[in-house]
């Protein structure tokens, strides 16, 4: 059993090692793709097991929980791992078209695979300190990917990204120390029981808030998101796609995990803060997007705004709301990564990501236009695409608890999202190119074109499938939310029946 939990982490590492050792040969990139396929296969197996058997746990080194490190997969973890593998594969293929020889020699594929491993590890671990380690694995490889290429704006964006994330890391680390200091354990399932025995429950809330800030920086919520718009538009498109899809989601995941499993002792306080954070994040993010005039910068600010929706689901803390958060997480990874990939193709054929400098894509690259419209409309919440259901569930959840204002905010932000997505459409796709050129996909070499379009089309298809046939996904999210709200199954899987 534990191998199904370990392999999604181990395979990207193995891939990274081989891809690095063969970095000078043309096989390095194919190793990355093959490794990603393998990861995907094992993630699917993991998912099927979790669907069949419920929460599963594996004790690393055969040391019993809570003493050794536990890997746990409940529905949420399993789906996050699966979606990570899907995104990983998509971006690995895309990278073959985009990444230069030089970047490969500097270890692009290794950095990328380790990033995927870090993300996967974060989703699967059932141990707080281990979560910190995976966060660091993810963080350092994101540093490397961010600056790979070394352009001035990458370095500049990198400085902000690195400094602000390091602050969050230190905060996280101190939080772990303090939490250990009052509970004496690091295992999440064990913590969920141990927090009940803490005498000073108020102190627990303080530490909870500390984690909230640490993860809040990672998740890019208001007012801690600055590093994201400062950096996400600078690296290679493959890199910003995988960042946009996955990195902030790990922060959201950590918030969801901690604030359902461990810190559910003072919901009135912590989740009220989260509700405010959610609302402000949605609004500031979307206004930021409305103020931008660059393809990738608009998309970057949108990430923030969308994170707000996910936090909203957590903050409301009802079955429907958490279900919405889970659905939103999954939908958003697929859609947002895809949009960044599309931005990359647009830049390659039209010459820039600055909207004022490009155009004509609708006329001369209709395929790209359609492929853009699918995730863009999905992000904007148009039915029947995936984003609609995500938004629908969250708005329903808000209305259900009579959160009129937050429901109104969520809807208004939806409108502004439409506005800023049409900004891209109305400037990059519809009008003629200012330089009079006709940006055509056929200008790209055949191999490159395939590398670009296959992942984009694949992710777009996924968006459509989730949109048109939402029932299985909704049911999944529902079960997942039920697991989150009642951690008994999680705790039992880790610690056994005796607890």
């Amino acid at each position, binding site marked *: 059993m534990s191998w199904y939990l370990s392999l999604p982490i181990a395979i990207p590492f193995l891939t990274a090692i081989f891809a690095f050792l063969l970095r000078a040969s043309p096989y390095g990139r194919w190793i990355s793709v093959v490794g990603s396929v393998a990861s995907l296969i094992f993630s699917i197996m993991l998912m099927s097991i979790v669907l069949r058997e419920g929460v599963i746990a594996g004790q690393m080194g055969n040391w019993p929980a809570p003493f050794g490190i536990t890997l746990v997969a409940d529905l949420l973890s399993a789906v996050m791992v699966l979606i990570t593998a899907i995104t990983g594969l998509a971006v690995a293929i895309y990278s073959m078209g985009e990444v230069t020889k030089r970047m490969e020699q500097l270890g692009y594929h290794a950095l990328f695979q380790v990033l995927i491993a870090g993300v996967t590890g974060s989703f699967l671990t059932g141990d707080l300190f281990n979560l910190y380690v995976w966060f660091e694995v993810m963080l350092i490889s994101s540093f490397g990917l961010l600056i790979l290429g070394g352009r001035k704006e990458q370095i500049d964006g*990198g400085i902000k990204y690195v400094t602000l994330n390091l602050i969050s890391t230190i905060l996280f680390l101190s939080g772990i120390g303090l939490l250990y200091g009052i509970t004496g354990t690091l295992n999440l399932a064990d913590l969920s029981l141990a927090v009940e025995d803490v005498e000073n429950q108020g102190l627990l809330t303080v530490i909870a808030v500390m984690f909230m800030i640490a993860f809040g920086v990672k998740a890019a919520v208001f007012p801690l998101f600055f590093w994201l718009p*400062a950096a996400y538009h600078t690296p290679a498109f493959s890199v910003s796609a995988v960042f946009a899809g996955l990195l902030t989601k790990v922060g959201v995941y950590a918030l969801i995990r901690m604030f359902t499993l461990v810190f559910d002792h003072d919901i009135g306080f912590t989740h009220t803060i989260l509700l405010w954070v959610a609302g402000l994040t949605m609004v500031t993010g979307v206004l930021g997007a409305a103020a931008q005039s660059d393809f990738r910068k608009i998309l970057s600010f949108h990430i923030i705004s969308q994170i707000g929706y996910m936090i909203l689901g957590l903050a409301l803390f009802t079955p429907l709301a958490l279900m919405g958060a889970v659905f939103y997480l999954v939908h958003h990874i697929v859609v947002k990564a895809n949009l960044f990939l599309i931005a990359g193709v647009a830049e390659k054929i039209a010459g820039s990501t600055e909207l004022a400098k490009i155009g004509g894509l609708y006329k001369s690259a209709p395929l790209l236009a359609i492929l853009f419209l699918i995730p863009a409309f999905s992000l904007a919440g148009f039915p029947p695409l995936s984003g609609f259901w995500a938004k629908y569930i969250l708005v329903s959840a808000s209305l259900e608890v009579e959160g009129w204002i937050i429901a109104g905010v969520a809807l208004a932000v939806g409108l502004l999202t439409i506005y800023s997505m049409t900004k891209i459409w109305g400037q990059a796709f519809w009008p003629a190119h200012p330089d009079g050129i006709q940006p055509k996909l056929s200008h790209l070499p055949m191999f490159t074109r395939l590398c670009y379009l296959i992942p984009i089309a694949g992710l777009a298809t996924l968006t459509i499938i989730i949109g048109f046939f939402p029932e299985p996904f909704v049911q999944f999210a529902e079960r997942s939310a039920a697991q989150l709200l009642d951690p008994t199954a999680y705790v039992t899987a880790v610690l056994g029946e005796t607890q």
Partner: protein
Amino acid sequence: MEILLSITVGILVAAAVYLMLARNVLRFIFGLILISNAANLVIFTSGRLTLGAPPLIADGALAPPEGVANALPQALVLTAIVIGFGLFAFALVLIFRAYTTLGTLYSDDMRIAEPRSEDAG
């Protein structure tokens, strides 16, 4: 000693934050070193302090003697130190590179990624 260390950690943190807020990113690096030390001390202290007695098992014994230091936080701190070193090394090189490419160490002047006159329309 725990109380005294708590206060010292507070001082370390305050100094680190002050340094991190400086214009010169080199000071940020100094602050980073200080605050990493502080975080390590937080973990170490949270595991409570035991004078002397490292957690070693003597030859022939099955377990360490009573009252040895808490081993777990030590392992955590060790991991954190090494990770912290990795992050620090990267940050230092990044700042070094920033100076050689951007020509400044003053974060206020680093405005390539987010240009000052950015068109807000």
